[in-house]
């Protein structure tokens, strides 16, 4: 008789703890769903992007970029585990952008014969802002935007421009991918200082465009700092609408002119 009673009591106990456990589990699921949903999605995207990078053999052809992406993703995971969902999401976005960059670079380099790992060829890029009448010499202090990349140890391309929407100075998705690459480039060369130029299309008033260009340069600078570049290496300047890349008067030209450009200064 005693054994039977104990058994019944035991069963009841088990049921209660089961229910409690299930409720706790449900609560965790709800919590997890509610707070971490966006972060989770972003981490998944980053994982996918990293997978694509692996498939593109980024570990072989773009090792540094791939490692950066892996590190960012690892950080995202650990932030997530510590329930820092906002930080996790941000890190995951960075990881995804870096993974996309790694994949693109890997694909590029695979096409170049003899390019593998750190043995990529030097690339020389010269960017001259055209004056309005086709003259070639550049004035001191303005529009001085010649970027040469001739370093033998260099992997990959030099700093790339980013573009902006009309009358806006926030980073677009595309811009952030490019900025990931620019930040990478900066980190590989700790002695280099740059001046970030803000430019606009010709629509609207000259003065307002100078201010808008300054905001664009500033936004690019802040983003680089966020990606880990030291502020002491960065300065900004705005040229407004006065130094267009494309002197045309159409949507295509205007889109090209709404940009931030990264010029190396000694």
């Amino acid at each position, binding site marked *: 008789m005693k054994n039977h009673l104990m058994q019944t009591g035991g069963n009841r106990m088990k049921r209660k703890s089961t229910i409690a456990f299930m409720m706790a589990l449900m609560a965790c699921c709800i919590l997890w769903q509610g707070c971490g949903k966006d972060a989770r999605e972003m981490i998944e995207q980053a994982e996918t992007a990293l997978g694509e990078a692996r498939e593109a053999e980024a570990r072989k052809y773009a090792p540094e970029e791939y490692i950066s992406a892996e590190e960012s993703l690892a950080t995202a995971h650990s932030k997530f585990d510590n329930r820092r969902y906002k930080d996790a999401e941000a890190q995951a976005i960075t990881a995804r952008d870096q993974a996309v960059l790694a994949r693109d670079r890997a694909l590029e380099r695979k096409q170049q014969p003899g390019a593998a790992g750190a043995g990529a060829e030097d690339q020389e890029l010269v960017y001259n802002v055209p*004056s*309005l*009448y086709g*003259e070639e010499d550049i*004035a*001191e*202090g*303005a*529009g001085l935007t010649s970027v040469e990349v001739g370093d033998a140890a260099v992997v990959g391309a030099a700093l790339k421009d980013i573009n902006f929407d009309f*009358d806006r100075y926030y980073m677009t998705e595309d811009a952030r991918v490019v900025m990931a690459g620019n930040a990478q480039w900066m980190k590989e060369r700790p002695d280099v200082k740059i001046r970030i130029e803000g430019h606009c299309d010709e629509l*609207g*008033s*000259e*003065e*307002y465009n*100078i*201010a*808008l260009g*300054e*905001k664009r340069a*500033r936004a690019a600078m*802040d983003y680089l700092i966020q990606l880990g570049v030291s502020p002491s290496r960065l300065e900004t*300047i*705005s*040229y407004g609408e*006065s*130094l267009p890349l494309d002197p045309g008067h159409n949507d295509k030209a205007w889109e090209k002119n709404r940009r931030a450009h990264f010029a190396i200064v000694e």
Partner: protein
Amino acid sequence: MKSGRIIAFLLGLLVSQAVAAEINLPDEPTAEDFIVISKAPSQVPIAVPDFLIKYSDPYSRKAPASLAQVLRNDLEASGLFKVIPQEFYLQKLRLLDSKEDFAAWSMIGAEACARGILDCRGDDLYSVELRFYDVTSKSMVLGKRYTGSEQSLRRMIHRFADEILLWLTGKRGSFETRIAFVSDISGRKEIYVMDSDGYNIQPVTNNRTLNLAPEWLDEDRLVYTSYRKVQPHLFMWQREDAGETRITYKTSFNLGAAASPDGRNLALALENPGGNIDIYVMKTDASRILRITSNPGIDLSPTWSPDARFLAFVSDRSGGPQIYMFSLDAGTEGTKNKPVRLTEEGSYNTGPAWSPDGKRIAFAGRRGNQFDLFMIELDRSQGSNLVRLTETPWNEEDPAWSPDGRMLVYSSNKGGNYDLYTISIYAGKTRRLTDSESMEAAPAWSPCLRKEEP
């Protein structure tokens, strides 16, 4: 005849003098004999025949024959006169020794007539005698004689046009002035000044970088923004010695300074360390910097009210650039002291310019895909206070007031690329000032070069 005697008497009074001298004829109109031909907005029909040329020295060079055209253009541009074309003039030109044939002028509908006699004394010394007649009362109401070099002839005519407007309306004209502007004719944007009718263009900057936003401090000094020291800084140019002084040093983003009416302060846009671009006021030596606006949006392009108590400026705090007004009495923008939005229509309104009499703010507003000129009437208490000045398929931008408040100078791409024009705000009459393949924009109109005599 009475008028004959007056003319003879007045002629007798004329005495030649040295360089750039002039004579004020004694019968300035008093309140009683102030003859009102017509007040704006209706235009006075006026005849301006070619000037007579009288040479003392038979060996003198040929003098410029287009001076009458300078006067005609000024009078038309003011919007107060309608110049009757020369083909309608009945009488042959005669020397002014005999009396003026007022009947002939009346017959063609002229209510006023302006005559000039140019005399060359050789060796780059000219004298111009200018007369302004009221045809209805058959009398000369204004007469001046100027003496100077060939180079100053145009200026003499501009001065006389200003005198005519002063006599007619009690407010001096704006033709003896200079207009500063930005042009990229050299391949880079530089600052220039020219006469109010587009002649005598003179460079202010030549540093091959980027120069913008000229504004006059007074009739002799110009303030502008230049990139010649890498970042945009303010510089001042002096007309006397064409010397350039740097104003800002410490602040790294200085844009679009406007001088207060007394010439002692500058309002401009500065960027603070946090990256915010706001309106500040400071002394002309960049000291005593005072913050005016405090808003995360872009605030810039200030313009002063003539009593220096308000600023109007552009801000994108509500999404796109709009024009706001702010009272300086209460200090920096705060919760109790916020700028008032003046423009409600349109997504992009910019370039505010406060008229010298304080009654209006001109600006450029984008409607559809083009910019047009508008004015906000500040003292209209009811109804819509917006006046549209242009409605064209081209852009009209960067308005700036003439010192007499009768005209705006602005930049328009009507001719393909941007050139400068003036428009009279009463009659809508436009005049083209520049005609080039390059871009001319951002004009600023100096105060009168001639100071009023007490």
